[in-house]
């Protein structure tokens, strides 16, 4: 892999991260924010794999596996919260859940 393809891949990873972040920040629906978060996580994961391939090192792929575990855990917690919100308060708007504010 050349430096140029690595740069292209990093740009792609950054774009994925930026798109995901944009989604998290802009969307108010909890479910869509969780999906955007998955997209956001894909960016760093791609960057790890690209960097690992560039250096010929397996650690990049190991980091990807760890990221997958993180993402799974995060989605599990997020979906659980989403379900609780739907059942208890019947809301899907994350902005309306601001009762923790002082």
């Amino acid at each position, binding site marked *: 892999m050349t430096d140029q393809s690595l740069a292209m891949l990093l740009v792609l990873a950054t774009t994925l991260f930026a798109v995901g972040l944009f989604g998290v920040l802009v969307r108010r629906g909890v479910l869509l924010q969780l999906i955007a978060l998955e997209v956001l996580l894909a960016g760093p994961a791609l960057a790890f794999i690209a960097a690992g391939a560039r250096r010929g090192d397996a650690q990049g792929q190991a980091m990807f596996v760890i990221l997958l575990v993180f993402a799974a855990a995060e989605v599990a917690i997020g979906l659980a919260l989403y379900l609780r919100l739907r059942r208890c308060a019947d809301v899907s708007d994350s*902005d309306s859940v*601001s009762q923790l504010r*002082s």
Partner: protein
Amino acid sequence: MSSNFWLLLVPVPTLAAFMTLAFGPFWLGPSQVRAVALAGAWLTAALMLAASGVCASGTCHLLAPVFTVKVGTASVALALILDPLATVVGTTVAIVGGFVISYSLGYMARARLADLRRFFAYMNLFLGAMLTMVMAGDSINFFLGWEMMGLCSFFLIGYNMSLPRAFAAGRKAFVITRFGDVLLLAGLLLLFYEAGGVRIDALVNAALVMPPGRRSVVAVLLLGGALAKSAQLPFHTWLPVAMAGPTPVSALLHSATMVAAGAFLLARFAPLFAATPEVLAAVAMVGAFSSCFGALVAVFQTDVKRMLAYSSISQIGFMIISIGVGAPQVAIAHFVIHAIFKSLLFLSAGDMAYAAGGRTDIAALAGSSTRRPIAYFSFAAGAASLAGLPLITAGWWSKEAILASAVSAGPLGEILWSLALIAVALTATYATRAVLVGAGPSTLLARPPAVPPAGIATNAPLVLLAAASLAGGLLVGPIVRFLGAAEPDTPAFSAIVGAAAVLLGVSAAFALRRHPHLASRIARARKVRQGFRIDAVYQQRFVRPFRHLAYWLNGVRRGGRSSGIVDPLGAVPVLGIVWLVRRMIHWAAVDRVDRVWMRLAGMVPELSSFSRRSQTGRVRDYALSLIFGIAALLLLALKSPRLPWH
């Protein structure tokens, strides 16, 4: 420690008795109080007798230094001395004091325990102060003893605290003698300034080389102190009212201590006065007028204690005359004789008045010869000595010596001599009158309450003093010689005229007894009896204006009138201090550092309400700040040189 250290111990027993009685933190029974008082007085008398024995055996210029302080060029050397003057006066004081305190044991028997303790404490302090003054070798000890006596006389005259009259009398004595004390202090300080030391011999020597004008000023100041203490003419008003104290107090105050202190002061500084003839002449004239005045007023008294008080003024006047004509030795001889017979007169009069139910007017003495024979006959002996019956009484010898020294003192001396003769005749009159009244039958309407017979503690001093006041004439010549002067040779005509004056006075008293209308005229002469109302004039001229001034300055509203100002003199410093407080203390009270901290603390609510706004509760906002935080951390990591990828 010098070999004369024992000299310092002489006044110690009386002072120790005072300390024990006044400050001892333990309970003492009546007999213990009496024992302490008696031991204090008589131990001192024994020491003083031992000292006089040493003095009589030859070496009579002992000096026991207390301590010496050098201040710049001045040397403050405190010391007690024992010279012939101190020996004679000190011995008299100690023995008479011992007698008076012994007598008080019986006289004060019915006093409450606390009063008894107070009384004996002050009596001992009084005695100790007089001895300290007599033996003082420096002006500081002298002045301390002098002042202490004034204080004690205040306490003792005002002993009967439930009696406003007694308290006022004590205050009067204190204020008037204090007036003299100020003069004395000024004189002593001027001398100190001149001499650069406090030893009395150094002061006298310095005074002798002073310019005459300043020497006269010092002499006049010392004279003022002596006159106030001795109750001489311009300052005599405190003595008659001082009768409010108990009789033993009067006996001590009039005979050996207090009033004699003025004469002693003049005798102590006699060389200084000898160098100022004009002041000396004034001294003699004051003495002559005081002796005439005192004797004249005493004739008109109806109260025996007041009579004896005016008699003291008169007798001290005799001493002052003799000092004024340059014979202080004769004055001291008269002081000794006077101390004996005057204490005797007071003590015996006190006993007779006690037997007459506590009445002290002369009429109440009638019948005393049967009620209290010992007291009456010793009173008669004392009165004979006071009158100066020729040859057989001590008073005659000392009085003759004074008359002789006056008549041989130039042209002024003859005026003094004739004035003194008048006083002698009047003295004989009033002394005899009291004795004659006592011999008569009792005139008391109600029988006085039965009183216990006088004990040995009362009678022994009376008998011994009576014997001394008759036989003491033998002492006059030796005392004068001991003090270092030639005995004045009495001119025959002076002795004869003196004896004639005494006999004339005695016969005048008999005439008064024979012709009651004369006596009743005397009893009506209230103006003379009240001492020509000099006291009232002082009250009007000095005391009341002063009191008004004091009230005015204090802004006290009296009788609806107010000065409108509240203490202008006293208020100025207070206002100044208040102003200073406002200017300085208040300025300093503002804590700038504290103010900064307080402002910081005041900012906390604003800051917290500002920072609270960031807490929106919205997930998206938190996500945004999270991203910014991570970005910032990443940027930091890129810049940081110590991380491994660099």
